[in-house]
């Protein structure tokens, strides 16, 4: 059943919330981030910080330094906008802060550029001890939330406003740092993360129709990146296409390029992603316009092996 990962997050957080260490912080977006579900059950451990995200992040760190597992959620663009506060008050501090950025990318649609988190992965990846996770569907979000309760160190999780199709089985097990092979294939590898995983799967179907064997990897952990899976894809498939609802600089495509270059791989890499601030529109139309829909992925894959 299609569900927005932000909604799955809110439900999972309310479920794991029985752990008394968990505290949730909000910047007046609780309905949008679905943290209101936690507040309904545990109002005493819900801190409403108002529209003051820098303070929210610092407060989360103070809670974390005092033994709490502090979840601070807002829109991805507003979280990443506080990069220096996150760097100083969360990252350098080695605080057990769980930063959550919903409304990732152009996929949010109508609200337009000001609400679109498109540089957040780049920013969070640059922080040395930050783990960056972007689940691709509801079940993966739930498992990731459960995993993060006991993770040591600061983390960033990136979630969608829009509903995403299920791409994982119901009994899915989340393993941080390990990309999931959703489709075996040998001619081209499609590496996707978050909302674009379903696009990659559709593209693989199209390619299969044309007799092309495409591997699909769900790269749910953007940092640390699964070097092994990337190198295996490069060695076994030759061509790689990455696709992400994020700027092409600093996200999945960059992470893959870094691995390929560092390891001297000769694999041909095509990076699909945004190169703009975004604009209002419907999600599907925007995915087409910005070149990250299934059709663009299959076209890029076709070119990669030609």
């Amino acid at each position, binding site marked *: 059943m299609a569900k927005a990962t932000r909604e799955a997050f809110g439900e999972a957080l309310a479920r794991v919330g029985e752990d008394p260490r968990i505290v949730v912080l909000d910047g007046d977006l609780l309905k949008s981030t679905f943290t209101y579900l936690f507040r309904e059950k545990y109002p005493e451990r819900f801190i409403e910080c108002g529209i003051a995200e820098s303070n929210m992040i610092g407060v989360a760190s103070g809670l974390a330094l005092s033994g709490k597992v502090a979840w601070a959620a807002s829109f991805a663009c507003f979280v990443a906008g506080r990069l220096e*506060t996150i760097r100083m008050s969360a990252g350098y501090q080695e605080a057990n802060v769980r930063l959550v950025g919903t409304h990732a990318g152009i996929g949010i649609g109508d609200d337009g550029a000001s609400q679109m988190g498109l540089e957040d992965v780049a920013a969070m990846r640059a922080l040395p001890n930050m783990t960056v996770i972007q689940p691709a569907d509801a079940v993966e979000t739930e498992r990731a939330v459960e995993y993060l309760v006991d993770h040591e160190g600061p983390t960033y999780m990136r979630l969608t406003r829009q509903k995403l199709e299920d791409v994982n089985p119901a009994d899915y097990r989340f393993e941080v740092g390990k990309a999931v092979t959703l489709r075996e294939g040998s001619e081209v590898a499609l590496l996707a993360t978050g909302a674009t995983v379903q696009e990659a799967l559709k593209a693989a179907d199209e390619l299969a129709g044309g007799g092309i064997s495409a591997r699909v990897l769900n790269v749910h952990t953007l940092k640390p990146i699964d070097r092994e899976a990337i190198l295996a894809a490069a060695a076994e498939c030759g061509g790689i296409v990455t696709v992400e609802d994020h700027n092409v600089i600093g996200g999945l495509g960059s992470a893959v390029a870094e691995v390929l270059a560092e390891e001297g791989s000769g694999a041909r890499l095509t990076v699909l992603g945004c190169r703009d601030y975004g604009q209002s529109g419907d999600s599907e139309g925007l995915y087409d316009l910005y070149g990250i829909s299934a059709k663009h992925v299959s076209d890029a894959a076709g070119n990669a092996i030609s």
Partner: protein
Amino acid sequence: MEVTTTKDRQALIDRLTDEARRLRVEDIKMITRAGSGHPGGTLSAADMVAALYLHKLRVRPEEPDWPDRDRFVLSKGHCIPIVYAALARVGFFPREWLNDLRKLGSPLQGHPDRVRCPGVEASTGSLGQGLSIAVGMALAGKLDGASWRVYCMMGDGESQAGQIWEAAMLAGKYRLQNLVGILDYNQVQQSDLVKNILDIEPTVAKWRSFNWHVREIDGHDMRQILDALDEAEMVVDRPALILSHTIKGKGVSWMELNPDWHGKAPDQEQAERAIAELEGRRSPESGGDGEGGAS
């Protein structure tokens, strides 16, 4: 609040005043050895830091992570050397560590680093962020029904940062009576007097309007410092701010209220003069010595 006789109180005041003087000497030596640092704001904070670490804070130097300890967050992180001097004085680490301030591999980083240095509660140095962390700590203490308290020392210059007021507003909202803010109002920031850069007045009215209890004191009068710290513990239903009027560079006459000594280490000769003055072996000099210059 402990019950003390007038005589005991005076003895405590005398002891802490002397401890503050020693911390200042240690601080000047440290910064001089390091060859860089921010002496002015360390000297203004010395009396309060002495009162906290040598009297008020419930901490266990041999057990830095003792869960029930009081927390002290130095939001004006560049002034950490005076706190390092206090941490060494009470035994969080050997005094020899002070020799390596700002050196490669030293736990005593140029700005506070909680991961590297025992006794440091929060890594700070980017101004305006410390109070938020202190508010988070106080919220955690409140959630746990704990008796420990959180103290956060801020600078006057950093009170220009919006995040301070975000944090102040939240602390007021949650009525954090386990939180004590200390504003080291030493009147000078890096480039000029605070009032010339961006005046933070009316300061008392600002904090009161954010639902804080405010007590103004002479931050170099140990009796007033102790009374204010005791009073802060009695405040219920809201956080307390001690608005501590101080003098940047206090104790070294030619550093006092001189922006040139915000971020510059004294040389050996200057350090000797400063220490002689702090130890009462030399009379205060009048006016600046004209040797200043931005770092």
